[in-house]
């Protein structure tokens, strides 16, 4: 059975205790999107500024558990200053890491190893890999990313 240390890596707890890029941005120019985890009631607010095809600023509001909050915090650090395409690649790579295959459910195998390699450096986000061993917590980790994707779509639709 995976232990707490598989889930709560030190870097995760650090981002939980000292969240980066928390707060709000003026709307407009920022886009504000709310995300909900209907299972637990967690709410997240993503403020996103996109300029010339790149994320110029991002802030996070709302409440959630250590996994959702640290995932959001790491996400802001990872996407700030990146191009929209880079952010989309990163999102795909992160969600691939968070996906579990049906055949591995219930097994003791290292589920994460079965996720196909993606050519994106996840950096600190790698620390969240252990979350897939706790399937009910995956939605906590992906909440901010799904909300970011929605904000990104809205920002791009707005610009075009």
């Amino acid at each position: 059975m995976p232990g707490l240390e598989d889930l709560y890596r030190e870097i995760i707890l650090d981002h939980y205790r000292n969240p980066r890029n928390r707060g709000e941005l003026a709307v407009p120019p920022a886009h504000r999107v709310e995300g909900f985890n209907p299972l637990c009631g967690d709410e997240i607010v993503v403020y996103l500024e996109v300029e010339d095809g790149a994320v110029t600023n991002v802030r996070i509001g709302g409440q959630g558990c250590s996994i959702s909050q640290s995932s959001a915090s790491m996400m802001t650090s990872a996407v700030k200053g990146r191009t929209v395409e880079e952010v989309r690649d990163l999102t795909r790579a992160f969600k691939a890491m968070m996906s579990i295959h049906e055949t591995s459910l219930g097994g003791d195998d290292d589920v994460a190893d079965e996720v196909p390699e993606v050519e994106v450096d996840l950096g600190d986000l790698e620390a969240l890999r252990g979350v897939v061993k706790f399937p009910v917590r995956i939605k906590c980790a992906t909440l901010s990313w799904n909300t970011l994707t929605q904000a990104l779509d809205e920002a791009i639709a707005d610009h075009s």
Partner: protein
Amino acid sequence: MALSLHDDLDTAAVRADFPVLAQPTRSGGPLVFLDSAASSQKPRQVLDAMTTFYETEFANVHRGVYGLAEMATARLEAARAAVARFIGAASAEEIIFTKNATEALNLVARSWGAANLGPDDAVVLSHLEHHANIVPWFQLQAERGFEIRWIPVGADGLLDLSTLDELLDGAKLLSVTAMSNVTGALPPIRQLTDAAHAAGALVCLDACQYVPHLACDLEALDVDFAAFSGHKMCGPTGIGVLWSRAELLDAMPPFLGGGGMILDVRLDGFTPDVAPAKFEAGTPPIAEAVGLHAAIDYLNAIGMERVRAHEVHLTEYTLRVLDERLGDRLTVHGPPEATERGGVFSLDLHGVHAHDVSQVLDEDGVCIRPGHHCAKPLMRVLGVNATARASVYIYNDESDVDALAASLERAADFFAF
């Protein structure tokens, strides 16, 4: 609420009846099951009754003239009668089997509500309600345009009844929980019923958390509808109950249409059967009814007064031990007096999210539930997004509470910064 019994429940004997409690947890330790408010575990007597029924007496009910069909029908109707006796209903015909309490409440909204509520009417709910007693009324409101009013919750976690008469003025229905699934708060049902009836409103009771834990006497409560689920009272999933008075049921249109609920079907329409068949379209949960009957027999053998006395004792113990060991690191939402609440504890371990609390507890084999508990309006009143909810039942004892407290201490230390 006066108590006639001290806690003399033999929990060791009860625990021996529940096979799952002997299962090791993922971490290998003993199972500390504190999630009965979500669903209770099942005693061997219930499991055996269902297996025996499937192995020796199963067929579809009604109409079949062969021996098995007669036997299965008799078992279903015996279960209906047992439910009626258990809650103090006037007759078995007043017991409608549904899928669960949620479907029972939807039945009240879609049948009685659709036939009786219009733009000039009002339905009164409370801030304590489960989504199952909120959303059906919003859904119907969108079609019928009536007003929904809310009885607020006071700082003591109980309903604030100071404006009750105004809220009930002109209302046609008061639909309230008999026990909060979040805080265990026990509203004063008879007081609410008297006030509602004086104002000309009917009363619908969400008795989901009440019937499994307290002796239920519908006559004494004087309500008009009551809904509850089998799976929270040692019975199986897939069966719930709606009770109402025969004269109300007679006047209500059917809910779901299909086989079993008609007297006649022609090319130009249909004629519904009488209650309870009128409200039981399709093959009913037959084996589940047999299981629910066995669960009622099991609870009756213990005695519901003894169940309540045990839970009051365990509630007092829980509130005391959590206060002693966690102190101001922990908030326990809800009424502070054990006699004003059931054994449901919504916990806020300061600085640690309910999800994280539950994760640490899981490693210690302690099963609780994080989240909003399908009561988001109440969560907003409490000013929280989520709580970690522990709940006790007949198979829990002081050692379970001690394990909970120890694991909460570990969670507080793990996340301390």
